């Protein structure tokens, strides 16, 4: 009773659909460029200890040295190597956003599945709680929670996960509502399949496309929130670098030493731009109904 012929057929068909989707995505130059950029940024972040020429926290030399020579991007007001800080900051931002979006996805997807599949009391409790979270503007809720828990990166991960969970719940909930009435779900229920099994094997694959799109868009938003909180002094604490607190620190010297501002500002801008472009591109290929309208 494992993989019957019908099961195998749908699986092959699904794989084919996916292959053409990826193929289509790879034909769009902006998706390819954004993807390549993100691969480079992610690889740099992972290999930061090997790639960074210097220590990110130790004052090494004269403060505010211009770019060039041993310090390709110059040094900051403490005499620390800006390039090394930039590389480690990428590790912080990508790490925080990946961790928080992973939590938001896991929690959000299951809450959404339960709410949409079971309806009734479960649905009311889950969906109304999400409404409450959505009554606060994202950054305000994030600041409020960080203010209470204390400013550090672990709490920033928790906070971003909390504020982005409702988006996943809503998307999965909506999609589950439509799928649950489909004949193949009724059939699965009729032959006595367990609810969890149905959710995992029949419902989840059918809501995968909007989840993937939301993940790539949320990664960009999460970096926006992390760097914003760090800019306000509520995220990464010194000496840990974040693109946000690097921009903030650069403000006092930006007239004389503009590179201190330009380096982290371009990195955060380009990274979010790349993630948004990927999200848009993914939506275009995975959800053809929306193509050309976004």
């Amino acid at each position, binding site marked *: 009773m494992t993989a019957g012929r019908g099961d195998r057929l749908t699986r092959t068909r699904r794989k084919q659909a996916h292959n053409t989707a990826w193929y289509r995505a790879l034909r769009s130059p902006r998706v390819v460029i954004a993807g390549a950029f993100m691969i480079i940024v992610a690889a740099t972040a992972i290999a930061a200890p090997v790639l960074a020429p210097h220590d990110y926290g130790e004052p090494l030399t004269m403060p505010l040295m211009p770019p060039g020579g041993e310090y390709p991007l110059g040094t900051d007001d403490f005499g620390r190597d800006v390039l090394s800080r930039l590389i480690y900051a990428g590790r912080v931002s990508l790490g925080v956003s990946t961790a928080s979006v992973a939590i938001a996805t896991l929690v959000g997807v299951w809450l959404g599945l339960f709410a949409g599949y079971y309806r009734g009391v479960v649905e009311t409790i889950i969906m109304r709680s999400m409404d409450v979270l959505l009554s606060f503007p994202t950054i305000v809720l994030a600041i409020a929670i960080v*203010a209470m828990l204390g400013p550090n990166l672990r709490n920033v991960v928790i906070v971003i996960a909390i504020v982005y969970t409702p988006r996943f719940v809503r998307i999965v909930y909506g999609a589950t509502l439509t799928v649950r009435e489909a004949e193949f779900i009724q059939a699965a229920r009729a032959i006595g399949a367990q609810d969890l099994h149905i959710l995992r094997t029949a419902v989840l694959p059918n809501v995968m496309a909007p989840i993937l799109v939301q993940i790539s868009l949320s990664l960009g938003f999460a970096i926006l929130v992390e760097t914003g909180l760090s800019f306000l002094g509520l995220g990464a604490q010194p000496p840990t670098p974040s693109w946000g607190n690097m*921009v903030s620190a650069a403000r006092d010297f*930006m007239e004389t030493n503009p590179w201190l501002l330009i380096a982290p500002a371009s990195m955060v801008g380009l990274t979010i731009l790349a993630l948004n472009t990927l999200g848009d591109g993914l939506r275009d290929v995975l959800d053809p109904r929306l193509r050309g309208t976004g």
Partner: protein
Amino acid sequence: MTQYLARRGIYLLVQLLVVATVVFMLLRLVPGDPARAILGDTATEEQVARVRHQLGLDQPIYRQYVSWMADVLRGDLGTSITSGRPVATDVRDRLGNSLELIVLATALSLIIGLPLGIIAGLRANRLPDFVLSAAAMLGLSLPGFVVGTVLLLIFALRLRWLPQTQFVEWSEDPAGHFKLVILPVLTLAASTVAVIMRMTRSSMLEVVRQDYIKLARAKGLSERTVILRHALRNAINPVVSVVGLELATLLGGTVIVETIFGWPGLSSLLIAGVRARDYPVVQGVVLLIAVLTILINIAVDIAYAVLDPRIRVS
């Protein structure tokens, strides 16, 4: 319509009650003793006890909750620990400054975003559309703190066209106040322009394919009439709802903008409260911002129901 409004009204009350409860519980997230967290390790036990009493923390939790709710209903948001002034007074003094930024940013976004969105929609997949869509993507992706800091560097520090951060009231010096408001509003509007433009573009794209547009053209109406009277009027609904959602985003966006430009609004009060661990101020501002967000959403829903009768039924 009456039934619709009644239903929304009851839902609104429940929502407000829940939000007030959540803000009450925020203080319970503080690890350990909030009074100790406010005062730091050097404070004596008596000082800690006094602040604990001031926050009502020496009472059982249900009584704290009841008195918090009763105070909030009377418009009493507690007393600031750092300034000793009622939070409600501080909040009232600063609300106007924040709303000023939001209203101006919304107006500017509509003035720029609508026409550009129409142009992009009508010239879809041609050069103007590519340029505008790329610009919109940039506007969406650049964080407010980057846009604000760069604008400050260029226009205030380098070109010296605009003053930096000495706040003056509108009533004292209108021209000076106007110069001061330009950069914060531009920063705040950057992403909203992009959102409105993208929504207008996709909505126009959708509408111009419809048969009634073909009919309008076939009747020999001028292109201008077809676009403005027939297409735009039908395309505007989704834009209205996106503007409503953006108002809430702008409310959040003021946090960064007010910090960068030293603008004395609600959000800079919030940040000052956070830095000083002045929990009553944090709770008061967060509650007010949440209530404003809820009211904006309700207003948008009602406006939508008025514009589109189909919604009232469902």
